[in-house]
């Protein structure tokens, strides 16, 4: 997957580039709006990540220009502006998602991957499987080693989200937002509490553990090698 990053802050650009390359992306970087627009118009990208406040040409103008040239590459805006008005303005110009700085890299990665999935229209599976854990989306049932596990609705949706992002670290913020539709983090760690419940049911009676905590970042569901 080819990705265009237009970001003038050198340090942020560096860690985003490193992270995305590790995740398997081929990343091109432009440090100002003019270079960014040139690249966007001449090279085929699967996705573009664009900062709003850029030298020479600002992000919104860049996106408008790209769309005017009938290039439908999904665009994710990165910006320090966080008001609803700014978000709406950003999305109206033809971008596809909006992420506010400071952000967690894991969230950026998840959003980038979600945008690519959306644009390539992968059909939704009816079943999710990781190792011997199987989640039936139609019947809303969960099995581990063919043994049915009974989950509360909140636990079921949490597990579904973890399995959809299997192998990727998801942050507490992402879980609050995507699983339970809360766009803020309560002081009390309700996610941690729920993960504990889920562990009890999924991992406790099995030798290989699937749910892992990455301290300071979030949680990941994966098979340990």
């Amino acid at each position, binding site marked *: 997957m080819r990705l265009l990053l237009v970001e003038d802050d050198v340090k942020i650009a560096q860690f985003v580039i490193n992270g995305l390359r590790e995740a398997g992306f081929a990343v091109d970087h432009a440090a100002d709006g003019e270079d960014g627009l040139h690249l966007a118009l001449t090279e085929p990208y699967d996705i573009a990540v664009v900062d709003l406040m850029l030298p020479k040409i600002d992000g919104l103008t860049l996106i408008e220009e790209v769309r005017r040239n009938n290039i439908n590459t999904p665009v994710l805006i990165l910006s320090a502006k966080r*008001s609803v008005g700014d978000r709406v303005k950003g999305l109206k110009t033809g971008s596809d998602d909006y992420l506010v700085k400071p952000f967690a890299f894991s969230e950026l990665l998840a959003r980038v991957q979600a945008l690519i999935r959306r644009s390539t229209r992968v059909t939704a599976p009816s079943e999710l499987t990781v190792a011997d854990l199987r989640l039936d989306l139609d019947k809303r049932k969960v099995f581990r080693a063919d043994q049915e596990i009974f989950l509360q609705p*909140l636990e079921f949706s949490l597990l579904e989200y973890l399995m959809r992002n299997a192998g990727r670290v998801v942050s507490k913020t992402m879980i609050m937002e995507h699983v339970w539709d809360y766009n803020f983090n309560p002081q009390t760690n309700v996610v941690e509490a729920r993960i504990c419940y889920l562990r009890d049911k999924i991992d406790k009676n099995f030798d290989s553990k699937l749910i892992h905590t990455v301290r300071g970042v979030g949680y990941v569901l994966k098979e340990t090698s």
Partner: protein
Amino acid sequence: MSLKKLRDLKNSLLFRLTLLYAVAFTVLSAIGFLIFYYRIYSVTMEHLDIELLAESRKYTDIIKENNVEAALSRISEEAELEDPAEDFYRLLNFKGDILFSTDMSYWGPIATQDILQKMQKEEATSKIQTLDMEERDDQARMITAIVGPDTVLQIGESLEEVDEYLDIFLQLFSILIVSLIIVSTITGWLLARRATMDMQEVTETAAEISNGAYDRRVQIKGRLMEIERLGATFNHMLDRIQSLLKSMKEINDNIAHDLRSPLARIRGIAEMSLLKEKDIEEYKDMAASTIEECDTLIDMINTMLDITEAEAGVNGDKAEEFELVKLIREACELFHPIAEAKMIHLKTDLPASLAVTSNRKKVQRIITNLLENALKYTPADGAVTVSAAAQNGEIRIEFEDTGMGISETDLPHIFERFYRCDRSRSQGGTGLGLSLVKAYAESLKGSIHVQSAVNKGSRFTLILNA
């Protein structure tokens, strides 16, 4: 006075109002006077004409009863009594030949042919006209009447007396109008000054405030209604500015303090990681702690911005209808593991359904914050009850706990930013949760109330419009 001052005066409201008042008053009284003057003039003339007519009739009668000679001797008698400069009598035949005349040296030649011809044509027996005489300043009123066969009598009377009489009126009115103009100008000036002085005071207060006296207010009692309203609006604006300034100052102080601690911890962790070689697990631990501290900071900054935006009413709230009971149940469900871990009995007392039209995200956050607080400050084996009910077009949502309670000294301050009661300090938190609740509740046109008793518990009541 310099030219600029003169121009300022010309442009001043005081000057304009006074001028307008005086001009309006003068024009009105002048019109009144003119009407009055004209009436007096016409009444006087009418009166004079009636007199002249009666006089001519008298001689018609004498001629009819006696003869022309009798009339002549009567005219001479009467003319003797009059001043020849003020009255004249003439007797003519139809051709215009003068049969008798009083002393006409004061009057000059008076044309009679035209009037006689006119009378014959109209078959009139008398005609009254005003004479303009070349030799005299005044005018005269003259009657030409047929008093007998081939006999015409002309009586003229000077209008000098009438003019004098009218002149007195004119003088009287002039004095009256001049004094009216003076009085109206003074009255107008006083009235305008009353209005502008009040405004002047508002201006002066504003000037003082721009120089930093933010606690000054305009006195509004006993002023003109418009000025009172202006003053009240002005004072209201000042209250708002003052409270904003105060809270800005408090926030600055608190930000400095509350943001410093996590920054100090981050710096400490980073420094420790550089001081001595450690194994990879320790480094990971330090990096994780750094992220946690950063997240705390980000949360704090975001919450502060949320509060500011809600207070300023920046983002128009998108209202939608949603099921409040479902929202509350979801929040309780989310916090259920926390309550369970602390052995707190989390109860709900909710109706089957409560539809609310409001901003769902904000209500969700208010409810979560209040629920979280209740659970945080309630010790093990306590109880937290969430109840909701519709009442008189309002919706009351209550969060009751059996926790530590809030002391009376703390109670008035708990909604202030970064305010933390001594006993809650140990519990952590940003000190922003309740400020956000208040800001959000008020931005939704709702309100938040609290009752509390130390060591017994607290009850927070959120009131929303249905």
